[in-house]
């Protein structure tokens, strides 16, 4: 029997309404039993309506609780795989940064050895640049990846290296370094 049919069947004196309302305890609502057509004739309009909500509750709440359950499961799993992924990305990034810095440090070490062996090998400006690049590399916060200045410092190191290799007349480039912009079109002005 449908709910609308139950409502149509409803009848009875008006004074019973308040009584039946008084008889209802708050606990009853949650624990509402499944709809029983036999009870229809003896229940009031209000109780019927309340029972009707109870019926929907289970459906509505089922939806909600399943969603919540799914969310919790997803969150838990996401936390695990996210951590794993983050670790991987972190490792990869850390490796890249360290490799690039190591490349520059290697160059600086060789150039410094050259300067020690023959102080006239490079111009004073070049020697100063080698020293400045060395300083920049030393200052790079390797163990503080969340330092907001890392990108700025890396840019400064790359620029100093560019100037150095330009002045040495050598074509040295860290192989992992990606140029900031692709080649322009011929029509570019």
């Amino acid at each position, binding site marked *: 029997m449908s709910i609308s049919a139950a409502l149509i069947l409803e009848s009875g004196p008006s004074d019973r309404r308040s009584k039946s309302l008084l008889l209802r305890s708050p606990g009853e609502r949650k624990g509402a039993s499944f709809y029983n057509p036999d009870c229809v004739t003896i229940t009031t309009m209000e109780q019927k309506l309340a029972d009707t909500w109870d019926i929907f509750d289970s459906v509505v709440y089922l939806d909600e609780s399943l969603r919540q359950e799914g969310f919790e499961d997803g969150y838990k799993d996401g936390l695990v795989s996210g951590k794993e992924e983050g670790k991987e990305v972190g490792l990869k990034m850390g490796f890249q940064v360290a490799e690039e810095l190591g490349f520059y440090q290697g160059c600086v070490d060789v150039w410094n050895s050259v300067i020690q062996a023959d102080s006239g090998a490079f111009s004073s400006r070049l020697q100063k640049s080698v020293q400045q690049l060395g300083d920049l590399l030393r200052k790079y916060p390797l163990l503080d990846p969340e330092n907001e200045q890392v990108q700025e410092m890396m840019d400064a190191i790359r*620029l100093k290296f560019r100037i150095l290799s*330009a002045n040495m007349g050598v074509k040295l480039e860290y192989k992992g370094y990606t*140029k900031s*912009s692709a080649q*322009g079109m*011929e029509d*570019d002005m």
Partner: protein
Amino acid sequence: MELLDGELELRVIQKLEGHTDRVWGLAWNPAATGVTGMLASCSGDKTVRIWQKGPSGSWDCSAVLEDTHARTVRSCAWSPSGKLLATASFDGTTAVWEHVGGEFECVATLEGHENEVKGVSWNASGSLLATCARDKTVWIWEAQPGNEFECVSVLQGHTQDVKMVQWHPFLDVLVSVSYDNSVKVWTEDGDDDWHCVQTLGEASSGHTSTVWALSFNSVGDRMVTCSDDLTLKIWDTSQNPSETSGDGCGSWSHLCTLSGYHDRTIFSVHWSREGLIVSGAADDAIRLFTESKDSLVDQPSYKMLVKKEKAHDMDVNSVQWNLKEPRLLASASDDGTIKIWELSEVSK
């Protein structure tokens, strides 16, 4: 200048043909001795051509500088002595050519920019060379003995493509103009430390679109800039920015704006020794401007003297006054040609 009293016109003396692609830049050799006229032109055909006035009075191509640049040669500049020619290319390099006994030899290649080099300029003494590029940086190179060039500093500050660099006519003050709509002024603090001392942007009555070129007058107390915003702007540059103190004195300021004359992008501007400003624009026309003395207001103002419509078949990319013959002008265009013009009074 009494010449300016009569009605003036620009008359074509000669059309120089030879480049097989658009011509981007021009530079007159400033050397005081020797031939009266030597013009360098650079092009999208990857070459630089040298044009000289022959005994017959006509201009001929005397040399083609090729096989060095792999892409468009965007601009060129002679050293003050006229012995060296620097050429900036989209291949990311700047080449320096030496003029020895009628021959040109590439004596140095400056590599450092990450991509297309757009402009090149020598300082007054010829000891420093500035280059600018699409990589948003300006590099300053110092000439060393034996045609070696060492990078002194890399200037970062522009947020876009830098279109042109130009040194002040006698101070070691560098000016750069950019696609970021600004004009930047750079000086050295000593010890290779170059800094931007002033930015002439929209807030300082500057341009509202790409600034393409700039030029100083002969005494260096005024500068003109041209832009995609269809205006020319004149700046007071009489103060030495190297002596700028904290209170802002010594800085350059906007004098006036010439608007309403152009309706397409202005690519090139050049100030003659006699005070005439020439502009070359995307509307294929060449215009001449001069300061108007009869202005009633105290502020300087400039008026248009001559407008040469259809000076070329396509965009005029560069206009350059001859440095010795004050009424001689060269223009370069997307149509692949160069034209030599003479400014004269209209014969009645």
